């Protein structure tokens, strides 16, 4: 029988006696057993000695960053979105240490990839430093007295995270069936292959046998999980519509009385309807043939503290959307007053509408106390403040605002009759 080659002639690039060669050979056997075409397979390798193997493979090969191979493979698998394709990750115990979150996440999501952890219990390429997989007592060139605490039991962790197939085995002999099982399983599979690095591990721990190290570490050699995947993360395509919907377009039906640009600031509290009131106001301005800009300002915690809207209106297209000093300031709450204080102080003209319940505010603008909260409550005082301003200064018809408020979804609670009482 002719076996499809997955590794090109010329030998493997590893040190004599290195378990990485066994992994490569057994992976080739497993892929052949599964009857795959080499180009149905994407081999994603991490950084470390194992990663130089990709030049030997006849599959597609992708060689990424240290610790990130699992995340990269997850993207490839989701991008392929094809169960006929197989994505296999080679990663070392060092890469699995730095990329632990990617491993947990991929197992949890059930990404359709197979990860082969080459666990030789240390960082081989950089001189034999301990990884988070190095067992307690295992010596390396930089911990000559042995590591002080145990290594990860990746198999238990990954099984708990929701992987479909998890197995630990000793990296000797023929373990191609095990790797084939892992690759054949839909969803996330992981095989941890235990090895001893012939360059650093053997020298630092003379006479120590692989099987004994693993046993003494309390790491079980077995299949931890082999079952059909549960709910897999799906990445199915949706049927998106254009974001530029005609329903967003306002056709002017009113007109306005503005000769120049004006800037209006509404300063209140989160939950006080400031942003929706400003939104309606800006739309009403557009409905009146004006240009408008609308900028919200609030603390990082959007549900408490101040909520401020800055609106610019202009008969000409607005280029600069900032508004350093407002022409009109409407303050509906103490949070808003605290925020607006420096703006009020900068105003040398214009109009400041201050909720009648609030403390004095220093400003050079005409200050009018308006019973906003007492008349309409603290949820509607911002829209009332804007209506009050429209009634007094009439930059555009109050009917435009009423039109927008009436049509806006969720605005049924706004009692327009109450809003139309303007005595000071």
């Amino acid at each position, binding site marked *: 029988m002719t076996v499809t080659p997955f590794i090109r002639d010329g030998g493997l690039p590893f040190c004599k006696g290195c378990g990485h060669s066994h992994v490569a050979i057994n992976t080739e056997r497993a892929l052949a057993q599964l009857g795959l075409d*080499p*180009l149905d397979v994407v081999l994603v390798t991490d950084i470390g000695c194992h990663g130089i193997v990709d030049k030997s493979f006849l599959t*597609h*090969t*992708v*060689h*990424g*960053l240290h610790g*990130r191979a699992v*995340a*990269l*493979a*997850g*993207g*490839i698998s*989701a*991008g*392929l979105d094809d169960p006929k*394709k197989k994505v296999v990750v080679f990663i070392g115990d060092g890469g699995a240490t730095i990329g632990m*979150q*990617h491993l947990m*996440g991929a197992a949890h999501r059930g990404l359709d990839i197979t990860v082969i952890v080459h666990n030789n219990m240390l960082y081989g390429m950089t001189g034999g430093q301990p990884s988070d997989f190095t067992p307690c007592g295992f010596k390396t060139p930089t911990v000559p007295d042995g590591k002080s605490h145990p290594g990860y039991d990746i198999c238990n962790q990954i099984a708990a995270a929701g992987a479909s197939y998890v197995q630990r085995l000793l990296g000797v002999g023929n373990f191609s069936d095990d790797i084939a099982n892992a690759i054949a399983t839909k969803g996330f599979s992981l095989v941890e292959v235990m090895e001893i690095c012939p360059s650093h591990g053997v020298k630092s721990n003379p006479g120590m046998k692989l099987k004994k190290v693993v046993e003494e570490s309390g790491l079980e050699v077995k299949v931890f999980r082999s079952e059909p995947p549960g709910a897999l993360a799906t*990445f*199915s*395509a949706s049927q*998106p519509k*254009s*974001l*530029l919907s005609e329903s*967003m*377009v*306002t*056709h*002017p*039906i*009113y*007109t*306005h*009385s503005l*000769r120049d640009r004006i800037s209006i600031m509404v300063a209140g509290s989160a939950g006080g309807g400031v942003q929706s009131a400003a939104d309606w106001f*800006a739309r009403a*301005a557009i409905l009146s*043939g*004006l*240009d*408008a*800009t*609308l*900028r919200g*300002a609030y603390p990082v915690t959007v549900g408490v503290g101040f909520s401020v809207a800055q609106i610019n209106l202009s*008969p000409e297209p*607005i*280029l*600069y*959307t*900032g508004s350093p000093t407002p022409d009109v300031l409407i303050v509906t709450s103490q949070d808003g007053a605290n925020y607006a204080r420096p703006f009020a102080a900068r105003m040398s003209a214009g109009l400041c509408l201050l909720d009648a319940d609030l403390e004095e505010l220093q400003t050079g603008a005409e200050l009018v106390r308006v019973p906003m909260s007492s008349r309409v409550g603290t949820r509607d005082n911002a829209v009332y403040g804007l209506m009050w301003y429209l009634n007094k200064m*009439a930059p555009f*018809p109050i*009917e*435009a605002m009423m039109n927008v408020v009436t049509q806006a979804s969720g605005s049924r609670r706004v009692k327009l009759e109450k809003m139309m009482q303007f005595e000071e």
Partner: protein
Amino acid sequence: MHRHLAVAIQQSQWLQRTVAKNQMPFKVSTVPKALTDGSRLITESCVRAGADVFIGYPITPANLLYLYASKRYPRMLAAPDEITTLQWMAGFSATGHIPVTATSFPGFALMVESINMAFMMELPMVIILAQRLGPATGSATCGSQGDLSVIAGTLSGGFPLPTLCISNFDDCWNISAEAVKLAVRMRSPVVLLTSKEMVMTRSSYDWSGLPEIEPIQRRFYEGAGPYEPYSTGPDLIPEFLPVSQNSYQVRLTASTHDRNGIIQNVLPEAIDNTKRLESKLVKHLPGYTFFDFDEDKGAGTLIVSYGITSLASRDAVQELRKSGKKVSLLVAKTLLPVPGDYLDICDRYERVVVAEENLTGQLRHLLYGTRGRAGLTGINGISKMITPAEIVAEVER
């Protein structure tokens, strides 16, 4: 009487009073407009240009881009962090998709090594960077233009990471599509630079006249083989093949590699390949040099700006010209690699005023280094948008 006005008068008691008092309104506009933010236009533009997957990790002020992406991209993935975001994007890109993400500095910082990887692998993708005030977490809800130097220093070795910048809503549409197409054409990650005020502040906008965006047509290698993933012709851009096909083996690697994608340390062929990564971007730069040059003949002063400060700069130029002052304006949209055109234009002016919302003048330094030149000044500041008045004052100084 204008038909529109007649309807308006009929509907408005206010207007009836105004007409009765013989105080006619100053101006009547009938142009339909939407109240929109830049994020909406950017998202729509990227998708129409051919971007087909968005991978996001939430961060202020890029959250609207994430929200719209969830409604608009054919595929949308919520990544668990920004390193995964970039790695997933690289994976999608390797399979022939065009991925986009949006972030701000803290997320971008996590992405840096992976952006280097994608650059080395020559994988197309777009990273939208919505700037906020740093350093570190800084002020998440305060705009800024503080990240140009970060982008300029993203790639080890000083390689240019192609960066386009949005100066207004028209650019949200036009430049975003160019970013997607540039990523594919150059086989490179591309940064689309913007800032908080552009992606969150809403403005009335007439989008009816926006040009149609034709989706980019991907062209994959169709030769007779053997396929060498990093072989190029005179255009210095290797033909792409996704790892989803069964015709030819594809090798992608972040390490220094030869034309077959096999790791080589300092083999001349591999080093030449690394050098090519810069050459290809510089060679094609004229094809993606985007700027607005509003020339006022006879002006001795040039305002140079980009991004959010372009809004104030355009405003200031209008004001200055109204008062009889001659002034020209250069709005830079291609920021990296820096087009030579900018210095050529600057050379024609006695005074060059660079306005940008950061402390140190990052574009100014990209153009002129620390030494500057005669007649060069900057308008800088943080924590608030630079105002037209500040620019007017500097020009009139």
